[in-house]
Each structure stands twice: as C-alpha cells, then as structure tokens.
C-alpha cells in the first residue's frame, strides 16, 4: 500500500499533472466565489475538458476543483451574507457577524485555514476510512437517515441566534417550501397549482440567494457610505495562524464529523456541517458569543464542509453512489475510463485511489493558500459602500440563480423569497433553519416514508442508532427545560443571554407589528398547507400534513407570544412622543405616579396616542431620528416622512429588483443590466458618475464575454425572441 501511495505522490511531481491540478483548483475557486455556481458550475465546465485526457490528469483536474469549491464559497457568505450553498450558511452565522464588526479578514483567515485542514484531514480520512466504509454505510438504514435529517433541521433551529420557537417555525416553513414539487414517494405534484415549473421544486440557488442574498441587499442598500466599523488591518499572517491554532481541537472534530457525514449518502453534507456547528456550541463553556462572531463557529463547520467532500468520495468510489452533483461528475468521468466504482476499486486501481487522496490534500492546501493570499483585497470589499456593491450583486445573483433551471420564473421566486427573507430577518426569525429545512425536506420525507413502510409500527425507534439520535435530540431539550425551570425559580435570567426582549440590531422590527404579522402569516401558511394537502393521496400527504400541524401549533404559540409581548410593553415611541407634546403637564404626573404605572400601563392606551406620536415625531428631530421606530414603521410605508426609514428603503430596493426582472423579461438580460446598473448606481447608491460608467462598462463586457468562457446562459427577453 505504501508503495502505491508513494508512487502516486511521485506521479504528482509530473509537471503536467501538477498543472492540471492547479487549473482545477483555480476553476474550483472561481466557481465557488460566484454565488449560485459552486460545484455544479465546476462540473459543467470541466467535464467536457476531461474527455480525451488520460485518467490521471483528468482526475487531478476534477479533484482539484472538487476539493476547493467549499473553500471559496465561504467568501460571499462571510462578506456579503449570501451563502452560495446550504453548508456555507452555517459559516455565515458567525463569519458574517464577524465581518460586520470589521473583522472580515480574521473571519476569512480562520475559514480558509480550517478549510485547508478539513481537506487534508479529509484526505487522510479517505484513506483510513476505506475499510470501515462498508459496515458504516450498511449500518445506517432509513430510520437512522431519517433521524439525521430531523437532527439537521432541529439543530439549525435551536442553534441559530434568536428565539427557538421562531427558529422552529422558520425550519417548518423551509420544510414546507421544500415539499413544493413532485412527491418523492408517489410522483404526485404537490403545492404546484398545476404549474410544470413548480413541479420540479424550487431551485436551491434561488432559495438560498433570495432568502439571504437579496434580503441582505434590501436591508443594506441604504448604505451609501463605506462600512462604519473600521476594518481591522492589524496583525499579519502570523497572528491569524496563531489564533487558528488555538482552535485545533475544533478543526479536528469538525473534520471528523464531516468525513462521517460525507460517507452517508444523501443527507450527509448539510446535516454534517450543522452537526459540526452543534458540537462546537454544545462543548463550549461560554456559548454566548455564538452567532455573534465566535471563531469556533467558523472553524468547526468550515473544516467539516471540506472534509465532507472527501467523505463523499468514499460511497462514490466504493459503491458508485454519489452524494452530490460534483461527485456524480467524478463518477461519470471514471466510467468513461472504464474505471468501475465498487469495492474492487481498491484492488484494481489502488494507484488512482492514492492519486485522488494526494490530489485532494494538495488541492486543499493550494486552494486555501490562494484564498489566504487574497484575504486582504477581499476583506477590503467591505469598505466599498454597500449600495454600490448591491447593483452588481443583484445582477450576478440573479444570473447565478438563472443557471440552475434556465427559467425566469426562478428569478421571480427568488425575489419573492427575498422579501420573505427580509421580513424573517427584520422580525428576528433565524433564516438558516429555513434554508436547511428546505434542503432536507425531501430526504426527510423520503426516509420517513421508507422507514414507515419498511418497518413494522414503531420498531424502528428501538434500533440502537435511532436511539442515539433520539437521545441527541431530546436530551438537550430536557436539559434546557430543566434549566428554564431552575432559572424561573431563581429569577435568574443569566442562563439565556439571548432574551427575546433583547434588542438586536440585525432585527429592527422584532416585537413590532411586523413580527406579529409575520407570525400570523406563518400561521396562515401552515393552515393553508393543511387545506391544500388534504386532497393528496395518503402517501403524499403524510409528511406535509405532519409538518403542517407541527407548524400550525408552533406558529400559534408564536402569535400568542407576540401578542403577550405587545400587551406587556407600551407601544414603542408613544411614551417619549407624548412627553414631547405635553412635556410639563406629563412630567409631574408621571413622576408622582406609582412607579410601575409609568411604563407598564401605557400599553393598552398605546393605540390612542399613536397618531399623536407620529405628528410629534415629524416635528421633533430627536424623536424622528430612530429609523427603527417600530410602531410607526408599518404606517410610514404608505406615508411620506422626512427621513426614509429602512423599511421603506428595503421595499424600494425590492421594487428596483422587480423592475429589473420586468426589463429582463422584456428586453433580455444584457440590455436590462445596462439600464438597471447605471440607474441604480446613480439614483440609489449616488455613486460618482465616473464610477457608475466604468462599473457598467466592465459589467457589460463581462456579460458579453462570460457565456463564451463559462457554461453561463443569459436570460433572453421578449425582444430577443422577437428579433430572432
């Protein structure tokens, strides 16, 4: 074995092979950078190139790309809050927070180093796991795989920053959205309302980029100036590496979880990254910083999502079962060379196996190195006013989303989800569980259905593997309930640093009419889903109904919670405003009153003074200033006020995006970009004229050239069809 390993390493010294590996790495990095292309984009461009090559360079090329896609897809998640893949949404939780605190460089350095280590450990794991893979894969039957999907969604809901009920509701909404399309069990169409376009389900890229990317753009496009928090430029490479080294146990744990999750075909990758995050949170003594820029929240998952790719190669090579599009591509390529995947590959093609392992390890190091060297310029992106970035981002994200299905409908879905994502974000719903729910909906349903039909009654619950997962799922809940009771008794709220009442600058509309509205909307969605799914066949409605009822209960709980919060607190803004209108009359009265009466009882009366409050607010600068003045926000959307609130701005931005889509449908993507981008830059971003012209010109040239270089297609408009 060692001979083969060394021979494979020696063969990589061949410059031709190294060049291929390098090309693969660069292609993979570039593809990973563009949100929406990722691994699938790398497939499409590299697969035809490999036809006609010898197996070794072809493998080097593909493995090079495969190993690094998850290294660079972190960039957009960390810098822009737009994850290009479901697993990057995990890194986003802490990475994006850190970047918003001006530490983009630190976040990226940690992520890249972890990716590298994850890849290297993954490659080692790939070698060592080969003898273990078969029993491991065979010991995970449908019930275990089902529990794994449940665990993925539950972990995302519980661990995302914010209220757990909101997390669960978001997860349920995601699951429901994932149910749109053809049922995996009966090939029946659900929630499609007769549309063939919806029949295939919604595109992951459209959902991920909508719910995160467009929502982020809408909430930040009002930024015409650079980021306020200064970018930390202190500390060289050395300090980054030193900090990262202090988290070495997290790196190893993350990587091991990644390999394990990758070995399990189907659900592994996404759930695995969440498990890595989950264990990082669970084993941390001080959990308070998670979700607010904790380095441990970056290191573990980032190392996991690269080692997942290595783990994924195990079932691909040993069973011929690829876990995702990129490994399916690899499988296809192996077949063209007559390399038959299967247990015998270890005996028949040991040299190629080691070539894969070595290539994977070297590519991981090279990829991280390239990324590491570009951290500084990348991080400085956050200095650019967000509104200026937004114009190009809208164009690129919509284009990326178009690539998966080639349908304009995807772009409208993406825009609608952008609005939904913005509402979720602003009202304090964590969006990661939504995305994870969406991704895992079909596997969850599939394995629940298979479990239900292949096992008698609840026998499956008694399988040891299932019991372990149930324990992982239930014990923390019990522990939290216990802690909650203890905390209640001691009136000691320190156990939960993220109190629901805690202000959160990321969620300015929390506890406002908006969040009550969002909870009510979720309630309505679940209720409607129950109505619609009632007509499905028994097999097809099993899981949607289950989710519908669960969601209904959770959403109802949330509505009650919201109503109680509103009852308990006075309408925001009412108290200071009334003070401003009748300052002297109120002051002595308020002062003389029994203390609790000052704040506590203002609530029920809040509806009355609201209108007064608004008039007062426009007159008094000091009171009109907080744009997050939540009580007046829903009203202010319709009414012009002196200072445009963030809410108004967000909806304006969405209107711009909608306009862009209308233009695209009418005159095609290229022409729409040449109108939208300069207009947005000059009117919304108020960029300098020179900047706007160069920006648009560069984008125009890129869009002209791109389709000939990459497998990218520009949406055609009505005009284009008319002309041709």
């Amino acid at each position: 074995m060692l001979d083969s390993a060394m021979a494979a390493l020696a063969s990589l010294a061949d410059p031709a092979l190294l060049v291929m590996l390098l090309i693969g790495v660069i292609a993979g990095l570039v593809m990973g950078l563009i949100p929406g292309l990722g691994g699938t984009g790398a497939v499409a461009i590299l697969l035809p190139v490999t036809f006609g090559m010898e197996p070794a360079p072809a493998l080097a090329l593909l493995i090079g790309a495969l190993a690094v896609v998850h290294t660079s897809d972190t960039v957009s998640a960390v810098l822009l809050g737009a994850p290009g893949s479901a697993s990057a949404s995990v890194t986003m939780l802490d990475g994006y927070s850190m970047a918003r605190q001006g530490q983009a460089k630190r976040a990226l350095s940690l992520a890249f180093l972890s990716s590298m280590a994850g890849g290297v450990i993954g490659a080692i794991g790939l070698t060592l796991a080969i003898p273990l893979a078969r029993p491991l894969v065979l010991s995970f039957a449908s019930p275990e795989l089902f529990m794994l999907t449940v665990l993925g969604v539950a972990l995302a809901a519980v661990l995302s920053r914010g209220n757990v009920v909101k997390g669960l509701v978001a997860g349920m909404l995601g699951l429901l959205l994932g149910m749109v399309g053809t049922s995996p069990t009966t090939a029946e169409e659900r929630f499609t309302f007769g549309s063939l376009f919806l029949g295939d389900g919604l595109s992951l890229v459209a959902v991920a980029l909508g719910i995160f990317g467009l929502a982020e753009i809408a909430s930040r496009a009002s930024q015409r100036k650079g980021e306020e928090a200064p970018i930390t430029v202190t500390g060289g490479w050395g300090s980054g590496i030193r900090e990262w080294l202090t988290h070495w146990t997290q790196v190893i744990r993350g990587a091991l979880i990644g390999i394990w999750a990758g070995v399990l075909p189907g659900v592994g990758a996404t759930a695995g990254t969440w498990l890595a995050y989950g264990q990082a949170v669970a084993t941390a003594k001080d959990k308070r910083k998670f979700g607010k820029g904790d380095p441990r929240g970056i290191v573990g998952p980032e190392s996991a999502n690269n080692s997942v790719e290595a783990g994924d190669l195990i079932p691909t090579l040993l069973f011929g079962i690829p876990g995702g599009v990129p490994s399916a591509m690899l499988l296809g390529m192996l077949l063209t060379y007559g390399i038959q995947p299967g247990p015998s590959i270890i005996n028949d093609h040991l040299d190629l196996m080691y070539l894969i392992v070595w290539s994977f390890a070297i590519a991981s190091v090279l990829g991280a190195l390239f990324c590491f060297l570009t951290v500084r310029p990348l991080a400085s992106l956050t200095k650019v006013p967000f509104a200026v970035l937004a114009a190009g981002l809208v164009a690129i994200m919509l284009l990326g989303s178009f690539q998966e299905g080639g349908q304009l409908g995807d772009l409208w879905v993406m825009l609608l989800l952008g609005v939904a994502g913005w509402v979720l974000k602003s009202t304090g719903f964590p969006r990661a569980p939504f995305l994870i729910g969406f991704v895992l909906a079909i596997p969850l349903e599939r394995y629940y259905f298979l479990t239900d039909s292949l096992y008698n009654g609840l026998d499956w619950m008694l399988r040891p593997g299932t019991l372990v997962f149930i324990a992982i799922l239930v014990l923390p809940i019990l522990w939290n309930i216990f802690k909650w009771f203890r905390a209640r008794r001691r009136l000691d709220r320190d156990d939960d640093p993220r109190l629901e009442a805690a202000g959160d600058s990321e969620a300015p509309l929390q506890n406002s009419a908006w969040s009550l509205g969002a909870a009510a909307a979720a309630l309505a969605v679940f209720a409607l889903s129950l109505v619609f799914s009632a007509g499905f066949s028994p097999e097809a409605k099993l899981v949607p109904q289950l989710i519908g009822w669960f969601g209904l209960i959770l959403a109802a709980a949330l509505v009650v919670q919201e109503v109680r919060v509103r009852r308990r607190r006075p309408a925001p803004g009412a108290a200071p405003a009334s003070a401003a209108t009748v300052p002297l009359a109120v002051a002595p009265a308020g002062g003389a009153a029994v203390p609790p009466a000052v704040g506590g009882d203002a609530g029920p009366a809040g509806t009355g003074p609201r209108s007064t409050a608004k008039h007062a607010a426009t007159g008094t600068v000091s009171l009109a200033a907080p744009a997050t003045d939540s009580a007046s926000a829903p009203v202010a959307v319709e009414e012009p006020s002196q200072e445009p609130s963030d809410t108004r701005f967000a909806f304006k931005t969405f209107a711009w995006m909608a306009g862009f889509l209308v233009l695209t449908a009418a005159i095609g993507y290229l022409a729409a970009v040449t109108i939208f981008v300069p207009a947005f830059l000059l009117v919304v971003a108020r960029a300098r004229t020179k900047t706007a012209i160069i920006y648009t010109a560069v984008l125009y040239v890129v869009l002209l050239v791109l389709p000939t270089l990459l497998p990218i297609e520009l949406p055609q408009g009505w005009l284009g069809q008319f002309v041709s």
Partner: protein
Amino acid sequence: MNNTTLTVPTVWMRGGTSKCWVFERGDLDATGLPIDDVLLRLYGSPDPRQVDGVGGATSTTSKAVILSKSSEPGVDVEYTFAQVGIDENKVDWGSNCGNCSAVVAPFALEKGWVQPQRGETLVRARNTNTGQMILQRVSTPDGQWDPQLDTTIPGVPFPGTAVGLGFVDPAGRTTGRLLPTGNAVDALPVGGAEVQATLLDAGAPLVIVSAETAGLGGVPFEGWSLEVLPELERLDAVRRAGAVAMGLAVTPEGAERAIPKLAIAGPADPSSAASERADVQIMMLSMGNPHPALAITGSVGLTIAAGTAGTVVQRALGAPAGEDLQIRTPAGTISTWRRSIDGSDVVGSTRTARVLARASLPLALPVPGTGAAPMPQEDLVPTAPFRASEEPSPLAALAEPARHSRRTVLTAVGLFAALGLGTTIFGGSLLNPAATTEDGDFAGETIQMVIPLAEGGGTDTWARFIGSEMVHYIPGTPGFAPTNEAGGEGITGSNHFATSARANGTEVLVSTASTVVPWVLGRDAVKYSFEDLTPVLVNGTGGVIYARTAAGVGDVTDLVERDKPLVFGGISATGLDLTTLVAFDLLGADTTATFGFEGRGPVNLALQRGEVDIDYTTTSSYASAVEGIAKEGKATVLMSFGQLDAGGNVVRDPNFPDVPTVAEAYEKIHGQAPSGEKFEAYKTLLGLTYTYQKGLWVPQGTPEKAVALLRDSAHAMSEDQAFNGRADKILGGYPISADETLPERVAEAYTVSDSTKHYVQRLLHDTYGITVE
C-alpha cells in the same frame, strides 16, 4: 519638513480612581499644533496598547486635564477634560471626568494660582466641557499647601489627599433641564423593543436603567460586572437611544462613546455584609465596559436622581432619599451628600488625589520648519469634526453623497441602454449567422445538445461523451455545446426543445427512459412526442433483476406462492421502474413495492441491509452493485430483462448470456411461453426503456440532407473500432445503432398501442394507486 522634538511639561496625577496627565494650556498651545494631535501622539494613540506613548491602554488611564488660571471674577481655575482614544484616532471632549476634577485644586495650589487659607481653602473651578462650576475644598490647616496622604476612598488601595468636590446647581448643564425629556422614566425604542430608563442631566448626562432592565435582576452584586458582559451591546444601544431622546445626538449611531454614561441601579442586596450596607447599588459603564468605581459626575447625577420622584434610582431606593446617600459600587461604598448652600443646590462627594510624577514629555511629531503649515501627518484625521468641545455635536460621520441631477442620470442610463439594446438586437444575428448544414459539411457550425437532465448523471455523462466524440466524425468538425435543461424530470427541457429548437440539424435532443415513460403514459405535462422527432442514433442498455438470498429466494420459482411478499425498492413507478413492475405483473410475482428511494444505488444498499428484498440494476452498474454480493452468495441474480431483436422477440442479453430472460422465467414458472396483453406491454416497454433507451433526436422538419449527414456520421462512429474501444464502458456493451433501418425500427418501437397504454395505466392505478393525469 524636519523632525523636531518638542517637549511638553506635565504632572502625572491620580484623581479619584483615574490617572490623568495634567497640562497647562499654555504648554500645549506652545507646540503650535492642534491639541488633539498633540494628545494623541503623546499618549501613543491609536494603538490598543498605546505602546509608544504615556497612555495606559485603559479608559481610566488615558485621560488628560488641561488647566489655566482664570481671569474671570468668581472663577479661580478653568479646566478642560479630555478622554484620549486608545485604539481610535479620536479625542473625546464631550464630558467632564469627576475623578480627574480632583486634581484641579492640588494643581492650582501647587502652581500658586490660589492663595491657601488657614483651615480650609476653597478653589472655584470651572469645567469648560460642561460649563459646570465645582467648589473644591482642601484642608490647609496652617494656611500652607502641604498635602497629606491621609484619606482612603473605595477603588484606590492607597491613601491620598482629600479633595471635597461640590457641584453647584449641577442640573441641566448639558441639555438645559434636569430631565431632558420631562419624564422621570422614558421608554426607549431599542431594536424594536422598549427599554425603561431614566434620562437625567446632572453633573453629566446619564442614562439610568434598573438591574432588571439590564438583565441583572436577581444577580448578586458581586456578579454584576461579569454577568453584564453579554448585555453590553444592548446596553450601549440603550445608551445611544437615550442620547437621541435627550437631544444629544440625531441618530443612535451618531452618539458619542463617552456621553451620556450609562448607570445600572438596583436595590442594595439584603444579604450584603454590614460594612457594605448601602442605600442603593450602582454599576457604571464607561466607554462600553463595566467600570469598577463610580465617576464623580455620575455620583452627583445619581444623588439627584435619588431625590427625584419616579426615577429608576428612587424606585430602587425603596425609602425616600435623605440628605446623605450611601452608594455601593463594585469597588466599595461611597457616600455623597446634597445640601442647599446660599440658595444653590450643591451636591458633593469626597475624592482623593496624589501626584505620581513630574515629567516633561518629548513630542515626536514632525513639525513644519516655519511653524504656520497645517497637519503634517496624513493619518491624523483632521481635527475639526472632533473638536466640537463646547457643544455636543456628535454628527462626526461623513455626509451622505449628494443626489445626481436628473440630466446626468438620464444621459448615462440612456447611453448604456442604447448600447445594451443595440447588442441585443444586432449582436444576436452577428454572433449567430444562419446555419448552413445542407452543403455536405458542418464546418463553422456548433452542435447544441439539449440534455433535459441535471449534470453528472448517467445520461448526462453518456450524452456529453457521445457528443464530444461524434463531432469528430461529422464532416467539417462542428463545435459541441451541451446544455443541461433540467426540470420536471426531463419533461421541461424536452418540451422546450419540441417547441423552440431550430430545425436545421444544429440542435439535438437527448432522450432517456425518464422522458420516454411519461410520454408513453400520456401525461398531460408532456408536450413533446417522439413520433414528431427524427432519430439520429439510439443506444440500448440492459439489466437484471436480483433478490436477497436471505429473503428465501433461490431462483425464479421462489417469486410465486410465497408466505410473505418480497419487498421491491423503487424510485418512482412512472420511471424506469415501470418495466420491472410490468415484468412482475407478467410473471405473477408476489411482491409489494415501496417507492421513494433516491436512486438505484441506495436501493442496492437497502437490499444489502435487508430493508428490501428484490431490486434490479442496469448493466452499467451491475459490476459495482451486484456482482460482488452475488459472488458472496448474499444475492441471487434471477433474470435479465433481455433485448428485443429485429423481429421484436425477447432474446438473451449479450452481456448476460447465461441469465434467463423474463420470458424464459415465465416459461419456467408457468410451463408455457408468455403471450397476451401483458407480454405485449412488456415487449413495448423493453424496447423503449432498454433496447432503444437513449437516443439523439432532431426536430421534425430538419432537412433530409442534414439528418442523413448526422446519421451517417454516427454510423461511421459506431463502426469505428477505435471509438468502440474508448466507449466500451460508457456504452456498457450495447453498440450504438445509427444505420439506415434505424428510423423504421425506432418508429416501430416507439409506437405504443392503446391496449398497452390502457394496461399500464390500469396496472399503476389498481396495484400502485397512481392515477396518470
């Protein structure tokens, strides 16, 4: 420019719980530089460690007091307090520091600006940050300035010289009113929620919140400074909201860091030791962090708050405040007092001060040779925005860029729109000239291959391989551009091709079982018909049905008359599985089916785990999925699907010459050759989903010459030994078929009789509960 080293004389003093460098204004003015720059450079800022300066890298040790003798009647000394930024390039002039105020009297006495009196000496000091007068009293028993180190205060382990600080009419110095909003308690909007706080302007502007509001309800006082850490971010937001409500800032972001200060007030812990008995317990936040002691300006404000009805402090007190107040701070308990002196409201407390060092600080700034030029160093931010020392003007941020004129916008957008529209209208025809495919070669053309399935699957790999090979056999060697139009299980892309593909031979559709079966079933969504497309080449595959030995299956006869039906694992009844289901029905096999697996690979694993009993595999994955477990005796290969020969008969599969076909299995079970509706249906499906499984098609109406050229090229390829060598594994042992008889054979295979259609629909409905729409 030359590097000149100026020196600045200074005295380093402790005042209360702070340390500050004390300057005479004249000494700083003598440098000829803006004071902000001088201070920042002397302190070594910005630098988190202030390593190249005298700053102590904490907020309590990065302070400066600048004094001058006053010529005004009634005022002895004027002093200005400066909070020098540590890692920020900024000096905060927005507030006074009560601790540092204690250095004023000792310094003034030392300088001889005030004549010491016998007994006690009164120094009338005016703070210019706030305009506050502070009556300072020091003990001078002999009428001489001879400071004694005899008084201890909390927060300072060593004794110092007592300085009594009395604040005269401290209320409303910054905002004009004691309660800037007029309310004893305000509800501040913070992050959508509301926070109850007392906003008070006395000594310095204060935002006071209760311990409950700060998330410290029930926390023992010792734990406050630790437990408050996770709340800091929110509390700073409260503070900033308070700044807005008090009119100190226009937006929360614009609020200064040091002003207003935030205090957390709670009732004294009942459990605390007698030595720590206090009326109220307070923790201040300074520059965003818990402060161990109490700023003296803060103690003034809190003392007044304690005496103001309805405030958070007064509520925490429980009982009405007397003239003296014991305030417990993390560093110890301090006492304050409030008296009316000569008709003025005087609030006071005692601090101590001590001289730590007398120094002269070299100023390592490059200064202009002739003295008059401005700012020598670029990285020092212009001082103007930060020097709003007298009035709190926090709008230091850059202004929003101005709007563009309508003309600029319209011109720029118009020009680009013209460019984009021009490219769209004219670019298309320039880049894609009309195809010439009837002239005997495809030179300069590009074959566009529509693959209606996702990248990476078996069909995708097959199509890309065949396409990239085939273009080399076509005269003129056209380019090859595969595009995946995945969606609707292949239906979307095929529909799109059927309606919009150009019929000139350059656009080719890939078909496979998953697009053929829905067409056979007549699903509504299918808008294409293989009867309307022209085949270029077809390629078959084969497969075998195998079962788990442990389920009690030794050969095909075990399929019938079973105690317990065999569980078949499927993906979807309306896909490739259909042929297997028809085979089971034909044989009368005793099986039940569970659909919903992701693919054949997972079914194979489920069979190995014992979750399902019977499965099938196509030839290409036979080796990886079945061969091994069959050899181990875990699985039994029961039969092959067989192949259709030219005469439409089921014959043995060349890749499985030793395995009986479904037809042979029928004979073995039932003792006679199969016939009838079910067998006809089986043969039709066998042809469509195996023998002619994958195909390349061009639209109807493609010129005869172009079709012939493509088909001949494909035929030439299929005859080429070199190609077959390369394609061996991809084709899986089934040759490509593109000869002259192809259209005829395909037409026959792709003709589905109504009885077959109805039978299949009935089977799906009756046995599997699926209604084909």
